[in-house]
């Protein structure tokens, strides 16, 4: 190599794309053709591989990626996977030789200008897939520590959740994928921007597009600064359309027009050089245009809607702040208000057509709020991740989820519900007469307490105060739904819970640890106001993540109540059988039936999804792998939960097994000894509560869990993410070996 260095080359050296990555390689080509580029050097792929080998990271990456098939991972699991790899990479040591070479390549004046550390992977910037923004770049590093820190972060970005999302297109593979780095002297431009040699919004047009912002380009790239957009005619480089603000001075407009014409000229020359339309990132100082990066414009059509949606879930801090404001001050109060208003409406006096109208409007409300949930609440939940990553990047903790301790202090509805359940349970246990009465009542297999029952309870010692507490508990916390059934219609389930709730574990209040971590967090950051702002968003996002679900469930509950009311009427008309279970999908049919005079039986189209295992081979999982969510080992009896009836049958001390612990059932967790969820993720509801209570949890288990039945004996290893099933089939020996 031209530099005589092992890990570093310059843009003037003749080195291959596989050595320095595509971004560096393209810029080297541009420089060779005579365009202006910043002082740069490249950290090659050998450096990356040396770093990985020296720190024994390849096996670790393999283990993380091999926990389960990546195709089966939900986006939350991808994020967790990326977080764990990032956390290890950031704690690893950069090879001494590379440190020496970097120090050699960066003289004091280079460092003083600031250094941009940009990703230059072997896979990015391809013609068919540019993957712009997939990997990280860091600007304005002005000391060696920040440069080394940025290098680690760029290397880590090779394994980010975004990269994992596109793993197939970029052939992501621990053995062969490498991240090279382009280090550039910062150009403190007067204006910066991006440019496209053909309009990316209209490929067939004869236009090119340029965006311009004052100062550095970073705000434009991350979306925090609104650029001025110019459309130019390719044939004469005249501005034919722009989004210039009216208040701009004429001189500014003139300057901008000169710059964009220069950039336009360069774009056409580059297109000629690359024989393909290109996009560039540029900076202008005293009329000189410096090219920061050049790549082919990709016309990749994103076919996967969910993937596109996922990529929108990472708003920048500014957007996150305004989203937090909107959610906290407008949406959550509105959702709460609407739920409460609906709960006040009396359905019994309504005529059939009015009830039909009510069902339709409640269905619309539910759909509306689900859309809000998807568009606003889920992206806000990203605030926790944004904070978590910042915390880990700064503190490099042993446990990559340590940051959760700083989020817990906010009161959540679920926490208030837990406290209310505990208090009501304590009253019940103290009131022997009430307990005895309710135990006898439960034995009669009734679901709802009648007026007569309530009078009888009130006549028992302390009965009146129990009734008051119980009614308040139901009204405040149980007007929610689970699997198309309303909690508040099932006194039998709530009372069973209350009778057992004295044994429920309480979360540990570790205020001292929280305070220590907070001090540590604020001490290690070099930008306290940024750190505090992220913590604030994280906490808000954390506190709302349960509440939004519970409030949404209240709206769902009101729809189900209206459907149940309609069901009773249709049963009395002989149009529906009591055994038929009505779901939300039937709402339109039911509403329509209420407006008809017909006496014909109603045909419902919705079907319960059948999760039962239909495969009849004699294959049985013996050990199931999932994500290690909460450490600890426990053995117990499996109790599958998917309905209120299952909750009623739940025996304290059992292991909960479910598709997902919804916030509508998180209060069951303190009664359990372990949690297994098919849904994966370290920041999902079940894990959050289990972690607070120290209950072992494995999640992200997948379909294999369908083979586990109620009553099966299991062992959970929450540290390794393994579920061991007690041997039942093919027991050819008497010894009961359990693990491999």
């Amino acid at each position: 190599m031209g530099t005589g260095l092992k890990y570093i080359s310059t843009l003037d050296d003749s080195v291959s794309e596989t050595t320095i990555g595509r971004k560096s390689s393209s810029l080297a080509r541009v420089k060779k053709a005579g365009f202006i580029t910043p002082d740069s050097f490249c950290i090659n792929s050998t450096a990356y591989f040396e770093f990985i080998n020296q720190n024994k990271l390849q096996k670790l990456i393999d283990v993380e990626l091999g926990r389960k098939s990546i195709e089966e991972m939900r986006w939350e699991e991808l994020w967790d996977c990326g977080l764990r790899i990032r956390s290890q990479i950031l704690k690893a040591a950069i090879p001494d030789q590379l440190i020496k070479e970097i120090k050699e390549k960066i003289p004091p004046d280079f460092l003083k200008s600031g250094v941009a550390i940009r990703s230059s992977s072997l896979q990015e910037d391809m013609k068919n897939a540019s993957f712009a923004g997939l990997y990280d770049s860091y600007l304005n590093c002005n000391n060696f520590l920040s440069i080394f820190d940025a290098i680690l972060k760029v290397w880590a970005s090779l394994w980010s959740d975004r990269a994992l999302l596109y793993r197939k297109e970029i052939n992501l593979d621990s053995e062969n994928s490498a991240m090279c780095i382009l280090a550039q002297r910062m150009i403190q431009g007067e204006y910066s921007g991006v440019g496209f040699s053909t309009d990316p919004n209209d490929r067939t047009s004869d236009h090119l597009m340029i965006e311009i912002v004052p100062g550095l380009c970073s705000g434009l790239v991350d979306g925090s600064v609104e650029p001025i957009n110019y459309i130019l005619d390719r044939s004469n480089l005249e501005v034919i359309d722009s989004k210039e603000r009216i208040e701009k001075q004429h001189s500014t407009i003139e300057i901008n027009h000169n710059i964009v014409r220069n950039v336009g000229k360069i774009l056409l020359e580059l297109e000629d050089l690359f024989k393909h339309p290109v996009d560039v990132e540029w900076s202008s100082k005293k009329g000189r245009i410096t090219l920061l990066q050049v790549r082919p414009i990709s016309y990749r059509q994103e076919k996967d809607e969910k993937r596109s949606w996922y990529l929108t879930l990472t708003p920048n801090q500014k957007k996150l702040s305004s989203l937090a404001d909107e959610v906290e001050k407008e949406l959550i109060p509105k959702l709460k208000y609407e739920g409460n208003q609906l709960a006040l409406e009396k359905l019994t006096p309504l005529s059939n057509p009015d009830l039909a109208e009510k069902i339709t409007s409640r269905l619309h409300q539910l759909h509306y709020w689900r859309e809000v949930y998807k568009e606003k609440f889920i992206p806000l939940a990203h605030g926790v991740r944004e904070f978590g990553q910042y915390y880990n990047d700064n503190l490099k903790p042993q446990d990559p989820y340590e940051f959760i301790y700083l989020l817990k202090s906010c009161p959540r509805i679920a926490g208030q519900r837990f406290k209310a359940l505990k208090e009501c349970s304590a009253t019940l246990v103290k009131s022997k007469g009430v307990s005895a009465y309710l135990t006898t009542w439960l034995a009669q297999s009734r679901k709802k307490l009648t007026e007569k029952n309530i009078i009888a309870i009130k006549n028992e010692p302390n009965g009146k105060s129990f009734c008051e507490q119980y009614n308040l508990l139901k009204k405040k916390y149980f007007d929610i739904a689970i699997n198309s059934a309303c909690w508040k219609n099932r006194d039998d389930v709530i009372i069973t819970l209350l009778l057992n709730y004295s044994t429920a574990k309480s979360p540990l209040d570790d205020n001292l640890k929280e305070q220590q971590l907070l001090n540590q967090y604020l001490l290690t950051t070099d930008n306290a106001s940024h750190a505090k702002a992220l913590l604030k968003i994280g906490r808000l996002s954390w506190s709302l993540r349960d509440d939004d679900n519970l409030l949404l469930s209240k709206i769902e509950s009101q729809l189900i109540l209206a459907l149940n009311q309609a069901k009773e009427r249709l049963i009395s008309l002989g149009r529906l059988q009591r055994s038929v279970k009505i779901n939300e999908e039937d709402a339109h049919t039911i509403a329509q039936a209420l407006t008809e005079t017909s006496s014909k039986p109603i045909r419902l189209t919705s079907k319960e999804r059948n999760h039962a295992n239909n495969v009849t081979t004699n294959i049985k999982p013996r050990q199931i792998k999932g994500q290690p969510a909460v450490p600890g080992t426990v053995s117990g009896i499996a109790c599958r939960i998917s309905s209120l009836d299952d909750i009623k049958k739940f025996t304290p001390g059992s292991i909960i097994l479910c598709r997902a612990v919804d916030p509508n059932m998180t209060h069951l967790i303190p009664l359990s000894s372990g949690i297994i969820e098919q849904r994966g993720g370290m920041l999902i509801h079940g894990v959050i509560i289990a972690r607070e209570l120290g209950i072992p949890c494995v999640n992200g288990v997948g379909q294999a869990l369908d083979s586990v039945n109620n009553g099966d004996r299991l062992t959970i290893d929450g540290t390794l993410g393994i579920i061991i099933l007690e041997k039942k089939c093919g027991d050819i020996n008497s010894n009961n070996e359990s693990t491999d």
Partner: protein
Amino acid sequence: MDKKKFDLQNEHLHKNDSNKNAVLSKIRRLLLSEDFAILCTKDEKAAYGSLVAFYISDDLKHLIFATPDYTNKYKLLNYCQQVSIVVDDRAKHQNKISNISAITMNGQATQVTGKDNIDNAKAKLLDKHGYLDELTASDSCVFFNVEIKRCLYVTHIQEVYEWVPD
């Protein structure tokens, strides 16, 4: 549970390919594609492992291997017929532990007797391992047939399935 929201978050569960038939196919593929296995035998004092070239029947119920009759494994097989056999594909995935799959079989090993049975076992083994012609022609060579009672298939490091032949 809000079903729509659940579906949004869990669509992968319905596409999951780790169903039982897929597992059986993987077991089959591994056993038919590998040539060698570790045979585990024991006596009253110790366990003993040895490498054997094997043939497995298409229904995966019978495994055949050959050994001279003066070997340790022969002695041990006469002591205890309960054996364990391990087959794995680590040679194909040297650097990726999570891609390695392994099968542990439990079964009963019986020496093949009777000319027709011996000829049959020899033909099957040689069909797969032609280079064993010298060994199988030797007077000291005996064949064992292992009736497979159970297979434990391990993948992704610690994901374990049990298959019991009908």
